[in-house]
């Protein structure tokens, strides 16, 4: 055991409740249970890790055997990992306005059916509503004597409406997820919003691709902050040499109006009271006024790379921690949407998000809007569908010319290394002078 420089144990037990309603039929509704643990041992060089199910009945003797097993794995590692010292501090989990567990599944199903019902308007051929509620009960302890216990509850719903007319099929989608408790009451109108958008999209044009100025709405600009900047600032990618932001700390990489932040302490969907290796979570300014300021780090990547803050290690139950984003956003600027439309003159407004992806080493990203509007003579005109945006990170950051003053956060999930964690992204409206817009419309 003398070769063990450090160990930690993260044990997460909990339950997931879901409701799936498809075309008024309750397809399934129920609760499942899980119990996963991760034991990490820092040996003479790197980490040996054991992941196992049903840890809760593990005795002291069995724990000793698990530490030995993890150490045996650590022996094959070659990289000399060191851990930066970080403050260990836990924030209180924000209280819930209404604990979802206090409302029976029958009542939640009835509310969800109401949301779904409001989406059943003319030309809608399918409606689907989903509810999900996940309780994580976390116990963390490490060989430094730090120990934390907390519980989080994340819940939310989505409503999908599919419209069809003469062989054309389009969809509208609304979703809301929260750490603040049950959020499905009084949301019926969102069913209608999704449905009306699906019907509108039946008559929208396919976007014509090309280079043009583009305004991104707060949701899509949030995805831009996440995909184009957030991932490339993750310390593990920087350490591996797989990020275009490597070696650029202090460099002016974007317009001075641009500040991009990741903040796990913010009480939004990506909130963590303490990170997955026991470090305090703090607001980290990745880009401050156009200058690359900080990378996101775990204790290991902070020691190896520097230039940033630890507290960004996150993990799905039963998986080892990775450097991840939490709540990522572009800070408000001073422009109104009207000013941006006037400045843009001719281009496209992209709204909503169907997700995105990035190759951080190459510095190329792609993401897709749910829909958009053409901008002609500074006015919004026709609706377009299936419109996307791709670009090179460093070029695009310089191309942001105006930031709005209307930041909104949106909730979602982010995948990396096979782990999908809850995040929120946000921004005000943002104007890009020169964007590569994709669409299958023909000239």
């Amino acid at each position, binding site marked *: 055991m003398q070769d063990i420089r450090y160990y930690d144990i993260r044990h997460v037990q909990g339950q997931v409740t879901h409701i799936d309603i498809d075309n008024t*039929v309750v397809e*399934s509704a129920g609760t499942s249970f899980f119990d996963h643990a991760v034991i990490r041992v820092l040996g003479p060089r790197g980490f040996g890790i054991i992941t196992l199910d049903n840890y809760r009945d593990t005795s002291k003797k069995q724990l000793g055997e698990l530490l030995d097993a993890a150490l045996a794995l650590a022996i*094959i590692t070659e990289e000399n990992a060191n851990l930066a010292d970080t403050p260990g501090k836990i924030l209180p989990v924000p209280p819930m306005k209404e604990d979802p567990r206090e409302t029976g599944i029958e009542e939640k199903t009835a509310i969800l059916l109401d949301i779904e019902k409001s989406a059943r308007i003319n030309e809608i051929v399918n409606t*689907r509503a989903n509810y999900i509620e996940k309780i994580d009960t976390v116990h963390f302890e490490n060989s430094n004597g730090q120990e934390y216990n907390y519980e989080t509850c994340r819940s939310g719903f989505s409503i999908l409406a599919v419209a069809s007319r003469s062989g054309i099929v389009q969809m509208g989608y609304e979703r809301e997820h929260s750490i603040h408790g049950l959020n499905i009451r009084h949301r019926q109108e969102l069913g209608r919003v999704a449905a009306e958008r699906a019907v509108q999209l039946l008559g929208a044009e396919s976007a014509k691709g090309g280079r043009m100025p583009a305004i991104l709405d707060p949701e899509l600009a949030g995805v831009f902050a996440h995909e184009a900047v957030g991932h490339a600032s993750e310390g593990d990618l920087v350490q591996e040499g797989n990020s275009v932001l490597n070696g650029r700390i202090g460099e002016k990489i974007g317009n001075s109006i641009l500040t991009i932040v990741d903040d796990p302490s913010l009480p939004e969907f990506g909130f963590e009271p303490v990170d997955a290796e026991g470090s305090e979570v703090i607001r980290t300014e990745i880009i401050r006024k156009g200058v690359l300021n900080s990378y996101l780090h775990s204790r290991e990547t902070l020691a190896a790379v520097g230039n940033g803050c630890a507290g960004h290690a996150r993990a799905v139950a039963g998986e080892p921690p990775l450097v991840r984003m939490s709540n990522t956003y572009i800070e408000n600027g001073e422009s109104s949407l009207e000013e941006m439309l006037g400045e843009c003159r001719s281009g496209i407004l992209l709204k909503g998000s169907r997700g995105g992806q990035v190759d951080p080493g*190459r510095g190329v990203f792609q993401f*897709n809007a749910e829909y958009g509007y053409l901008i002609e003579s500074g006015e919004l005109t026709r609706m377009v569908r299936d419109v996307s945006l*791709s670009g090179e990170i460093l070029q695009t950051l310089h191309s942001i010319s105006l930031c709005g003053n209307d930041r909104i956060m949106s909730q979602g999930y982010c995948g990396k290394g096979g782990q999908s964690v809850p995040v929120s992204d946000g921004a005000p409206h943002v104007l890009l002078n020169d964007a590569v817009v994709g669409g299958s419309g023909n000239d």
Partner: protein
Amino acid sequence: MMRWWAAVETIEKIIRDGQKRVDEVEVCYFEGRSISADLKREKIGYATGSQSSGLSIRVIDHGMIGASSTNNPEKWSECLNAAIKSANFATPQPWGGLPAPVVMEGKPLCYDSTLELAASTVSSLLKALIEGASHHPSSVTSGSAGLSESKSILANSNDLWYSRPTTMTSVSLETISGQSTGYEFNNSCSLDYDASAVGEKASFLASHSVNGRDISTGRYDVVLSPVAFAQLLGNVLIPALNGRNVQAGRSRLGNMLGEGMFDPSLCFYDDPVNERGLAGARWDAEGTPAQRVDFVKNGVVGAFAYDLKTAYRYGKKSTGNATRSGPGGAPGIGHHNFMADGKRISVCEERAIYVHDVVGAHTANPMSGDFSVELSNPFMVDGGSFEYPVRKAMLSGNVFDMLKEIGGLGKDDRCLGTSILPSIRLNKQQIIV
């Protein structure tokens, strides 16, 4: 982990106890072990061993279906109660019973009894990846190698009791050369491949993408590699063949059974017992014998994928396409080894943009089929060889439309998780720069 005989006893108890309370009970239990290690640049950064187990219970009572799952088989009673409670909330539907057992012949699929989960094997796979990468001028950024084994039992109150072992091995490597990246991987149930060739390919992609040339926006013939083809099919065509999406009005192919929707040479089918496949099965997740399903034959839509639940509801027959893809590991609709066939040509013989992979395929519109993706490692090819790398380009189109007339399929079928696919040549696609 439970002792295996204890798991068997628990399953019998669940079925006995459940049958007193509901019409039918189905239990799926699995146990797995794995070992893996990850590279940080060219050194092993960490090594992981894992043990996992899972119990899924589904009950059916008067056409109401409920399910629950837990990691802990000792908590089976809580899980059974949750499954029965879950059934109480479901809308009742027509139900014709869980399958009875049939005799299954043939050796186990996706299993190599000689595979040993040894840390030394994982280390040597990583060394081979690095050695392969050294053949071209690039740097390794990350990589991984893993070995796993699992065994599972599917049992139901209709006396069905099937069990099977599976094994899996995987390697992957990421490399960079300047600002050009390369990624390659391989999976197989046994160590029947050369990991250094995987490393060599990742390094080739990065090093040969350096100094990419700019091309202009316009229409080009495009060759999608098996990986890029699988990405677009998986996000658009495969969901459109799912019987539940078809019946719910969420599939553009829903009303097209018997219609010629694609190139008259194109075939798409599920071949569950293909020996090359990584997701092969002799029975599906509900115990229905798995069978070949011809989704598209000679361009004509021929079948959709069904599990028992969707089939009973809409008066269809299960096609043996249940997979453990539902909430909490409950059965849902999927496929085993999704394959394509059609006219085979030398896809790179004539000038085209060869696309190794795409960025953002999951943002495609699964209803309409419209997509825009950024290209990874695009090369201009001619006369069967790479001419020069293309710096940056976006491909926009519609998956359903682009398959209406294809140039042809390659002769390079590759196993990729739940599909085995060749490359495909497509004529005059929209490229935006």
